[in-house]
């Protein structure tokens, strides 16, 4: 069942703590890469009214799409992406809305994952690239990392 916006925000705020811990990853140096200091939250606080709607649970979709991957790693990538490309709450909200829109109307999880896969391929075809610390990522996958960092952490 999809959480209410308030519940989602609580999840996101609690996820920020996980983000701060998870961001260190194996190397312990993510904070040095792009953020001003380790005490500054990477993810801006998104107001309820700016959170996107979807028929499926957004956190569940994010978790399923990154199944098997190291969560801290995905969070780290998401944080660096946000730092570079969506450094304020409006930008983050827009980004979330863009990526959630890919599956927002879908009610089947498998179809949602396939839609995201197709969006990644389409990004590469169109050379819609986000250079995240030099890594050439599809915009969709970079945004999904950001979404994962917020929704799952």
């Amino acid at each position: 069942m999809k959480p209410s916006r308030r519940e989602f925000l609580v999840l996101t705020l609690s996820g920020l703590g996980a983000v701060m811990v998870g961001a260190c990853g194996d190397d312990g140096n993510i904070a040095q890469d792009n953020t001003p200091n380790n005490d500054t939250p990477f993810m801006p606080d998104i107001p309820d009214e700016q959170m996107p709607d979807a028929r499926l649970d957004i956190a569940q979709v994010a978790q399923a799409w990154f199944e098997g991957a190291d969560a801290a790693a995905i969070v780290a990538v998401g944080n660096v992406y946000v730092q570079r490309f969506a450094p304020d709450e409006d930008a983050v909200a827009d980004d979330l809305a863009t990526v959630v829109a890919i599956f927002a109307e879908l009610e089947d999880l498998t179809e949602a994952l396939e839609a995201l896969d197709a969006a990644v391929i389409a990004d590469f075809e169109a050379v819609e690239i986000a250079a995240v610390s030099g890594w050439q990522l599809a915009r969709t996958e970079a945004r999904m990392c950001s979404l994962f960092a917020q929704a799952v952490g």
Partner: protein
Amino acid sequence: MFEDARDLGDGAILQADVCVAGAGAAGITLARGLRDQGLRVILLESGGLDLDAATQDLYSGSAVGTAPIDLTGCRARFFGGSTHWWAGWCRALDEDIFEARDWVPRSGWPITRQDLLPHYRQAHESCQIGAFEYDPDAVSERLGRPVLPFEPELAANVIYQYSPPSNFGAIYRTELNNADDINVVLNANLVNIALSEDGASVARFECATLDGTRFSVQADRYVMALGGIETPRMLLASNTQESAGVGNSSDMVGRCFMEHPHFYRGGFLLLPETVDMSLYTSRHDVMTRDGDVERQARVVAALGLSPALRRQHGLMALAATVSRGDFNASADVIGPLARQVGELVKPGGGFSLYSLDLRVEQAPNPDSRITLTDARDALGIPRIELNWLIQDEDKESVRRTLELIGAGLGKTGQGRLWMPLDNEGRYDPPFTNEGCHHMGTTRMSADPSEGVVDANLKVHDTDNLYIASCSVFPCGGFANPTLTIVALAHRLAQHLAQEMP
């Protein structure tokens, strides 16, 4: 036959049909080709049969500009020239390099790749490589080793062939020694190009040895095969009759110096461990085919773009060779996010890192140039200053090219690409090295005001002076220049034989 200029009498005058200055890949190829056409050749070589410090010092000068150039470490001034130190990489220039590209100022050769094709085939034999075939899919199939399945709209694979490498001084020495119509004169330095009174033709090559012997060579045709730095140097330095130097009414001698900037570790790839990259990371022997010709070749694959893609996106040429990388050793270059991005490539681990070394085409830039200084070498010839410039446009083209290759790799579902970017998102390679490819300084042009030599490599301003060197390249592509140098020398030999009675 070989003789030593130090044994000549002072003031000696040698005569031949063709005098070639410089016994490197171009000079030796030309001499062999002319001999086959029944012409008598004098082949002048500054050095002897072995490296000599005093002769090598004649190359010294100053190098300024964007990146360092080693003026004496890249070039070998003895019989065989720089083929003594050549690494053997061979590839013909792609067809678009010969064409005028509207996004590349001063691009376009006055000849086509098709014009050079029969001579590329001759060069393949001279350089002891396979048949004229560079098809990555055919090579991959014959070897049973895959190439990355790029869609042609995004990226491409390229093939290099390897020469053993052919040391032209070693493999052709006996042949030249036994050739009655080739006189190789060692320790013979060209010190001045003397023009006729009307300045329209070369009257003689004036030469000297380091121990002070002076002599000259008179011929019907003269060829400078001294390489991309020494050729413009000698044209500029021969300025007693024409103050700007020989062949320099266009003021293009020495200009448009181009290298192939080598950006070592200029990119990285992350791929699942299961992806077979062996065709890129090591050399393989394979049969190559070109019509009726079949020959064994040693090959390696690399990454790049097709000519069509370069045209579509307005990009310069480049190739990226691939080698196994190490996460820890590369951390200082690629930063700490590599293993994390690896989770996108292969969730749960099991991914490998590969390093890319880029060989990059530069746009011709008249301000990247060779000029003379007041300092003089032991022969009294002005030393040079080389100002090698790498333009922001060159690097931006690299960034956009790598972006396409990265997109192509992502689309295969097999990995991700990393490139070094500065805080403004500009391509910022950690290492910039020269390739020892000195091109463009006496460029070919149809219009005499835009270059130094014509389509037949004849200096525009003269009737009988030619240049055989990668100094004539108007554009350099990404391919190592030796094969094209040798092809042009074969072509020039044919042209001279046809032209001379």
